[in-house]
């Protein structure tokens, strides 16, 4: 836990709630002064936020480095897409199904994987992504292979007389915002609970945690499944937003994106992940002003992250704001 988190914990929750609300309120009025393109960027940031939350739970709080987020992201995307395209089911069904299916699939994958040592575990999780892509490409009767699933309908809420379809960038923005807020709350509750403290104990010293009676194996598996479910939910949003899914959804690039968001923002903090997500998308989009240098600059950014900000940007911001505090 960072110093800020622990100090907040001792003083209680009263500060977080009003601040969180202020943040959400700000986000709600954002469409009034931001155009479609920045809104699109925020939408992408919030879609990525879900799998990033999952990875944060796994890596930041439980200490397991995983590259599998892209695999679960893809599974969630395809689940949602298949339901929407073949059955025309309403959005909330596709969304929940994506999360449940992904979480369920994570169980038989996680059980053998979690037995492995750290490096082998990382490679195994990468393997999930690669196998996932191969399945998406070759199980043509289900996924239509490389042709992909296109024309995924816009999110439809079947509420009897109050049914509506979310359309347009602004509409989608609010949908994703609402979901992101709920997801963040869920993560917050998990982390604040006794289970959350146990996760941290496992991260700090697994053997010690085991010795005081924490069932580390069960925790790791459950967190793996929850992390996968978050990624699946993100995938569902992705499918409905882009309206097309293809085997390209299963690529390591997404896994590394999540990793950068979590590590860049500050692993083990919730605000860090939110910041990381916005920072990452803001950066990749801002770099479009120099298209040839974009990926090179991004590579240098990664190096900078590793060598100068090993704990992510969050502590830097903390230092900056405490510096500002002293000035007052």
């Amino acid at each position, binding site marked *: 836990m960072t110093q800020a988190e622990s100090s907040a914990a001792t003083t209680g929750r009263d500060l977080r709630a009003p601040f969180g609300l202020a943040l959400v309120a700000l986000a709600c009025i954002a469409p009034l002064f931001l155009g479609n393109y920045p809104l699109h960027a925020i939408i992408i940031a919030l879609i990525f936020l879900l799998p990033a939350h999952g990875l944060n739970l796994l890596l930041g709080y439980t200490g397991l480095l995983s590259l599998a987020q892209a695999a679960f992201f893809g599974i969630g995307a395809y689940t949602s897409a298949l339901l929407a395209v073949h059955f025309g089911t309403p959005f909330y069904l596709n969304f929940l199904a994506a999360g449940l299916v992904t979480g369920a699939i994570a169980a038989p994958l996680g059980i053998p994987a979690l037995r492995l040592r750290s*490096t082998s575990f*990382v*490679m195994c999780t990468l393997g999930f992504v690669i*196998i996932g892509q*191969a399945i998406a490409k*070759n199980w043509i009767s289900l996924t239509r292979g490389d042709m992909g699933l296109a024309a995924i309908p816009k999110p439809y809420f079947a509420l009897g007389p109050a049914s509506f379809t979310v359309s347009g960038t602004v509409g989608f923005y609010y949908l994703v915002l609402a979901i992101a807020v709920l997801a963040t709350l869920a993560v917050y509750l998990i982390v604040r609970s006794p289970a959350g403290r146990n996760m941290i104990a496992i991260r700090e010293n697994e053997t010690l945690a085991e010795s005081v009676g924490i069932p580390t194996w069960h925790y790791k598996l459950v967190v793996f499944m929850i992390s996968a479910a978050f990624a699946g939910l993100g995938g569902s949003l992705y499918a409905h937003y882009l309206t097309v899914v293809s085997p390209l959804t299963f690529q390591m690039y997404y896994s590394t994106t999540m990793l950068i968001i979590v*590590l860049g923002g500050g692993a083990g903090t919730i605000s860090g992940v939110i910041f990381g997500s916005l920072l990452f998308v803001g950066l990749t989009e801002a770099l479009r002003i120099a298209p040839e240098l974009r*990926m090179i600059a991004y*590579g240098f950014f*990664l190096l900078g992250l590793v060598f100068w900000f090993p704990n992510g940007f969050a502590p830097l911001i903390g230092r900056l704001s405490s510096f500002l505090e002293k000035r007052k």
Partner: protein
Amino acid sequence: MFYTIIEQVVNGIVSGSVYAIVAVGMTMIFGVLRAINFAHGEYYMLGTFGAWFAIEHFDLPYPVAIVIGVVATAVIAVVVGNFVMQRIVGAPAEAGVLATLGVALILQNTVILVFGGSYKFFSGGYIEPVTLFGFTLAEQRILIIIVGLIVFVGLELMVTYSRIGKAMRAVSQNIECCAVVGIDVRHVALWTFILGAALAGLSGVLTAPVNVSVYGGMGELITFKTLPIIIMGGLGNVRGTFVAAMILGIAESLVATYVGLQFRDTVGFATLMLVLMWRPHGLFSAQARF
């Protein structure tokens, strides 16, 4: 029928040799730096580009181009090693992943920036087919197999008898004690890295004549092929990696023939996953490093 299988095994040995030269470099780097080098395939690409450039713009003969390709890769490895890889020693795994990913992006896209994104033709090399025991192979492939063996034997000798080789073993076994006996860990790490990268570059130059197409993004696939090999071979275990590379080459060949070429690239990771389920420590012990 029998002949077909043998033929596919021979094909497998050829591709296995290519993988082996690249993989032993990556596994040595892991043994000493404890970092998975996600940029390893890029050194393969750099070697190829170096040789291509020498042939294309200076009209140099292929053997000279080989040397130039490897030297170019080594030079870049010195820079990367000094500024990036040395600092990863002792850092957590995430640091290594992100740093090498960053290096990969930089190398790949700098090459695209400098040479243009289009694919180039590699002219040069010994591509005339020759028949041995009823199998037809381009001469270049026989060269690859021979070089693969030389590399393997050379590494074994170096690691067993030379000072730097023994230092490498020491660092991969116990970093803390190295300081005690006076081994400069960062120095060893740097040289291991340069050697590993140069080997990748060598593999690139040797396969370029038969692979024909040269482009900035070609390294990524190599990285993905090599990762499962080094895990299966036992991280840091040169002998194990060599064998694992051969096994993968042969398995890929057989799958391509009897199941379908589209499944070929999955063989690596699929085999890895199966192996890990059954033997979580890899096919060969990671304890028996080097």
